[in-house]
């Protein structure tokens, strides 16, 4: 059953910056409509992994990627139309990057890049995405003010709304909660649980408890090696497959 519902299939993914290899052959499948979390200490290659997924790795000179990543059966490392791929994947960065545009234009950015110009369509998308990101009520009266003038937590929700604006099939969140307060974090987590019905979510997080709360399955990445992938209950149980996993999630490690 699992085999047919894979949305991302990754085989022996290796990534090197210059001569330094940071991902040593990661192999995994991510299922459709699951929340898949990636945990691991700093410098484990979590962010690099996400960069490979939407091919923004291309813009880092000296980065070399090998292996295969198939998204819906398409080998994206050899793909020509990377813009189509990036529209399929929504990405949320650790620190909110509000583009220096109005709130409306921030959310309408991706649809506009994709060629949508009808004002009414754009307004509809903006409203839907802002509602999905639990930001609509706070900003609906000032959609024309600068997005960068919002507070940190609001900006982060703005970037989530923006990531949803091109109706992605996969949403990647890279430590989305490090700049925002716990209350907002919980609100966004509720949003993610809601979104799970429609899209696949990949969640990179430093908060192991967040992974435990949200994720269906969890991968433990350590220094570029995939230590363990399993159902979240097992990863956080007393008897995960690997001793290091137990030590990491219980804070003994490092």
């Amino acid at each position: 059953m699992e085999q047919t519902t894979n949305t991302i299939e990754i085989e022996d993914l290796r990534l090197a910056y210059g001569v330094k290899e940071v991902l040593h052959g990661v192999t995994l499948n991510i299922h459709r409509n699951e929340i898949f979390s990636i945990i691991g200490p700093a410098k484990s290659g979590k962010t690099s992994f996400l960069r490979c997924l939407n091919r923004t790795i291309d813009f880092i000179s000296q980065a070399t990627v090998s292996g295969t990543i198939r998204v819906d059966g398409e080998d994206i490392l050899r793909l020509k139309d990377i813009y189509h791929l990036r529209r399929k994947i929504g990405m949320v960065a650790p620190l909110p990057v509000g583009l220096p545009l109005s709130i409306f234009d921030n959310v309408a950015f991706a649809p506009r890049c994709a060629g949508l110009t009808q004002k009414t369509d754009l307004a509809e998308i903006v409203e839907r995405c802002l509602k999905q990101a639990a930001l609509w009520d706070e900003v609906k009266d000032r959609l024309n003010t600068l997005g960068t003038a919002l507070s940190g937590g609001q900006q982060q929700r703005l970037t989530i709304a923006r990531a949803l604006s091109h109706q992605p099939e996969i949403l990647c969140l890279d430590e989305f909660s490090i700049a925002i307060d716990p209350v907002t974090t919980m609100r966004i987590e509720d949003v993610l649980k809601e979104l799970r019905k429609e899209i696949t979510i990949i969640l990179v997080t430093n908060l192991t408890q967040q992974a435990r709360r949200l994720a269906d399955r969890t991968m433990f990445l350590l220094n570029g090696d995939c230590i363990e992938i399993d159902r979240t209950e097992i990863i956080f149980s007393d008897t995960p497959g690997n001793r290091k996993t137990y030590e990491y999630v219980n804070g003994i490690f490092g």
Partner: protein
Amino acid sequence: MNKEVNTDIVRPKQIPRRAFAAIAGEKLIELIIRLSGVSAIIFVLAIFFFVFREALPIFFSDHFDLFKFLFNTQWYPTSAVNVRYGTFALTVGSISITFLAMLIAVPFGLGSAIYISEFCGPKQKESLKIIIELLAAIPSVVWGFIGLTVMSRMIISITGAPVGVNLLNGGIILALMSVPIIVSISEDALKAVPDSYREAALALGATRWQIVYRVLLPAAKNGLLAAVLLGVGRAVGETMAVLMATGHAVQIPHGLLDSVRTLTANIAAELGEASVGSDHYHVLFLTGVLLFLLTFAVNLTADFVIRGIRRK
């Protein structure tokens, strides 16, 4: 033993002395820095004061009328029977040639800055930057010479105009002179846009060109405007090249192929011939004041524009 004691005694004496010297030195440096900062204000005011003082006697002359000075097109400062000091044609000459130069230089300058900062590879980037700096290092008299000979002949053979030194010639020469400034400053402005903006836009599926005009241009607009303004400043103030390339005829131009004279070129050409203390001499200084006010107006509007953008 004795020697050791001696050095111990000497050291405490030396240390306070050094500290005093260090403090005094620091104060001195601070004073010099402060002076050089304030000097900019003093120089500007002093220049304005002296230029205006030289111009002042003209207001008490019988032949002078401020309204005619600003809005009359007739410039006959050495006429024996009917002296006329109308600078309107010169002002229009300066403005039109600056406008034309910017019309050419801004698209080219911004275009190459965008290319250098966003599209080309690192090796090409280095060589392009060096070449553009070389372009900035060419003295203005050499540009004027190129206008007078090469450009002039080209314009005559292409357009069939009777004279090659005209508005078009001067505009192109001035544009070439302003491009290096515009390129290097706007490239800096684009470089200052955080990479995270580029990455965010990329992740949203934007193409490189979409990143440029949807993200980079709005983000860098202040710096880009500053670049354009410095270009304008260069074009308004340039003297030697326009003196050689524009034909130096006092008239309001009706087309690109008419010769013009600018305020700057007029001063440069006539000041040497005007006898010190004559009306002609004073009126040339007043032209200088006019030029000063013109550039001041340009800078002020730019300032307001930038503030307007910021508030938005």
